[in-house]
């Protein structure tokens, strides 16, 4: 005992008298030198200049409502570019429900949900959505983009693992970035690749079982992918979920109100029990033709977002007139379930009609209402591809079909999709209009690309 104490005392004496040794040699600058450095420093300009002809700078100006017949840049066209799948944007019943709400509540809610911003329409909308999707609870957000971008960081934190599809949309990417978790990308719709990643994770877990017991895992996929127009293989994902104990977050912005017999989305399309999906998130800006988004699932999961969803707690709630419009749109969806079949038939029709255009290939499932037309062969650089597609779009616009290119932030996307023209099918388009669009695109491709 004496020996150890003696060694300890000697060690303390050594530490007291040893030279303190800084890792960084911080030579103290004189005041004059500091002032010189401050004088000399030149920052970059706040923003770099943007060339006047940048394709994303000059917006199309739509005068009047962006409905089936749309006036773009002064020219009247048939709208093949707005995500108004069920044609509810111009629906009189929806508008009158919104008017009634405007007369009762005014426009804004003047506060977040926690501070007198919860209106009875919000509660009603949440109940109706939960009932429609056959889940326990739903929560609504005032902005579509913020829905999935706030939901993911509420559950997945630093140290957790998220397996996400390469073609996931930008909102999902931002949600993942905000969560600070480990992101593992798997090839688009490639279950073998996903299984490989899951197996790798399993071997990692066996090396460190203590850490594995507290690391949450999630798979984030979309029902109908915005960037590629195809659907995810949900039954296989469910099998992987139970095999490797991973939770599934499903983003259904495009498939809600489109897939399934009653428009309940991809779970109805595949006939899967909705409780097998941990969280379904969708925005109300496509089929429901309103603004905002919602998440639905079991109360155990959804209730957590009421205190941890940043876009829910720290932001003003959805204006009541938009919530009332969404409720009425939901009523229409429930009352006339045959519109989904009509929409699907129109999608199949145009998908077939667009096959065989020289120079352009159709990307997307035959029943997807949001397709992409990509160049079969790229002309070398993305800039030139974009310019070429612009000429095709302009040709169509001049002849009465409104189209748009799919816009991306090229430097920010993780896996940038190739440039494409977005073709959106709605129930309001007649068969003649669909055929006209297809033949016009053939003509445009012929004249521009050959």
């Amino acid at each position: 005992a004496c020996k150890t104490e003696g060694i300890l005392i000697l060690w303390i004496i050594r530490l007291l008298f040893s030279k303190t040794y800084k890792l960084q040699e911080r030579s103290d600058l004189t005041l004059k030198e500091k002032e010189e450095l401050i004088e000399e420093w030149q920052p970059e300009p706040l923003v770099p200049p943007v060339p006047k002809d940048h394709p994303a700078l000059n917006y199309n100006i739509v005068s009047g409502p962006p409905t089936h017949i749309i006036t773009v840049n002064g020219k009247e066209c048939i709208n093949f570019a707005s995500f108004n799948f069920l044609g509810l944007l111009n629906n009189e019943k929806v508008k009158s429900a919104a008017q009634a709400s405007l007369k009762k509540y005014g426009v804004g809610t003047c506060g977040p949900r926690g501070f007198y911003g919860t209106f009875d329409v919000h509660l009603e909308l949440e109940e109706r959505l939960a009932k429609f999707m056959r889940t326990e609870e739903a929560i609504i957000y005032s902005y579509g983009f913020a829905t999935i971008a706030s939901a993911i960081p509420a559950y997945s934190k630093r140290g957790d693992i998220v397996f996400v599809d390469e073609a996931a949309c930008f909102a999902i990417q931002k949600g993942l970035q905000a969560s600070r978790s480990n992101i593992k990308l798997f090839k688009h719709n490639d279950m073998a690749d996903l299984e490989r990643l899951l197996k790798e994770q399993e071997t990692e877990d066996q090396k460190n079982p203590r850490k594995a017991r507290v690391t949450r895992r999630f798979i984030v996929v979309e029902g109908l992918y915005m960037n590629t127009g195809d659907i995810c293989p949900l039954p296989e994902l469910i099998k992987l979920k139970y095999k490797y104990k991973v939770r599934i977050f499903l983003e259904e912005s495009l498939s809600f109100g489109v897939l399934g017999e009653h428009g309940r989305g991809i779970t109805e399309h595949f006939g899967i029990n909705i409780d097998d999906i941990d969280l379904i998130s969708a925005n109300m800006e496509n089929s429901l033709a309103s603004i905002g988004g919602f998440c639905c699932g079991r109360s155990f999961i959804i209730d957590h977002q009421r205190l941890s969803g940043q876009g829910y707690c720290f932001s003003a709630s959805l204006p009541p007139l938009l919530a009332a419009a969404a409720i009425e749109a939901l009523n229409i969806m429930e009352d006339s379930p045959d519109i989904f079949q009509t929409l699907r038939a129109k999608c199949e029709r145009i998908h077939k009609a667009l096959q065989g255009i020289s120079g352009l290939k159709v990307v997307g499932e035959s029943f997807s209402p949001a397709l992409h037309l990509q160049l079969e062969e790229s002309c070398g650089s993305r800039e030139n591809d974009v310019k070429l597609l612009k000429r095709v779009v302009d040709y169509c616009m001049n002849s009465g079909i409104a189209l748009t290119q799919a816009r991306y932030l090229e430097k920010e996307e993780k896996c940038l999709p190739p440039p494409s023209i977005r073709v959106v099918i709605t129930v309001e388009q007649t068969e003649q209009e669909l055929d006209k669009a297809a033949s016009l695109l053939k003509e445009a491709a012929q004249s521009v690309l050959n």
Partner: protein
Amino acid sequence: MTDLKYRLAPASEMSRYCFPNNAVSGDASRCVCLIDSSTVEEINHIVHNGGLYKRPFNEAFEETPMLVAVLTYVGYGVLTLFGYLRDFMRQWKIEKCQNATEREEQKDFVPLYQDFENFYNRNLYMRIRDSWNRPICSVPGAKVDMMERVSHDYNWTFTYTGRVIKDIINMGSYNYLGFAQKTGACQEAAAKVLSQYGAGVCSTRQEMGNLDKHEELEKLVARFLGVESAMAYGMGFATNSMNIPALVGKGCLILSDELNHASLVLGARLSGATIRIFKHNNMQSLEKLLKDAIVHGQPRTRRPWKKILILVEGIYSMEGSIVRLPEVIALKKKYKSYLYLDEAHSIGALGPSGRGVVEYFGLNPEDVDVMMGTFTKSFGAAGGYIGGKKELIDYLRTYSHSAAYATSMSPPVVEQIITSVKCIMGEDGTNIGRARVQQLAENTRYFRRRLKEMGFIIYGNEDSPVVPLMLYMPAKIGAFGREMLKRNIGVVVVGFPATPIIESRARFCLSAAHTKEMLDTGGSVLATRTKQFCKYTWEQEEV
């Protein structure tokens, strides 16, 4: 101005927002306080660079009394003990567990929530949960109707009795200029646009969602603010979280105020830039950070920073303080950095014509590089905007995340903003806008003075329409909210984690729609019912 005397305040009076003024006192440990020789009770902490200010700047954050701080900690300690006891009882099934639980099939998955994360939620928040998320069923104006709800299991579940409590004086909604109305020019214009355009847009700004209404709105907002150009977005929160990453990136430095809003913090984090925090509204702290940043460069590599962006807010909604804008602009010019001003609460609420904190201080809007604000508070709508030079806005039109991926604003909401901005500017041919701005300023001064006279501790600047009243103890949070509701006054109470743990407060948001009678009713209820347990200040006693 009356003849002013200087008095050195002793260290015990210094709050954490004081800073030493060496030039006058020569003593770094003391603050210089200003006393008006005619009315002795006002103690204000003067500004270091007084010459930059064209108007008096009166802000006070009284120190938490020692006894109160101790009792608050004791209160939290007792609650924590009871929390552990309750958890123990729940675990051993003595008490029924009301929590929602995981599915049977997924019981062997990694637990989604850690038990401790939810401790505060289960045991403290749940007990006073009825103070928040109160559902209303009328327009959120000066008076509001609330749906009555009761709980038979201590706030775990609520049931609606079906009764509606009518005409509650609303001191919780952000309705500064009273534009939350269901009748009037704004509502009529919005109704017209709704019937013409519909409610939604179904596309993004860069694709097919750019309506003529959006262009009209942006030109109007630019004119209102006095800047070259502006751009509007659908959500105020998203305006910050999606545009800050577009402006700065890796290799840049962000200097952010301690008490910035969650959206600014999220935007700063998503950008990937280095973030450094300076003390709340403390210009010494900011200057030190700026000097160090430029002199020493980036950590480890010592490369010079690409740009420095200072993030501040106009009015801080939890403190009621106004940013020291003249000093911030002087610093920004001296150190060649850029200023991002978030005027969520100050646009429409400050300044003789409602143009925000820049007009309040009599400064040039061109000095602020990025002027951001929201339409939710003073304009009775939803959404946010950014104003600045044309190059900045052109850049944001091209590279903002919101322009490329998020649906554009709903047309009736846009029309509400257009009509309310025109009203504030006086372009609708009436005087309503000007009158409201003046009414708000009067209401603010009157209410603050009354509360101070009654002896409550009020934080913040004299001119800020956000009035935080200190409660400190956790039990008082619930009691205050419930007592006020019993007397038909709706207030907002906030506790941890929105505020530091011992500084829970009630927050009043004044509105131009509040009449003097409503403010008097509020004041008298405070005086009679709540004064007993909220009167903390000792200032009156000293005199």
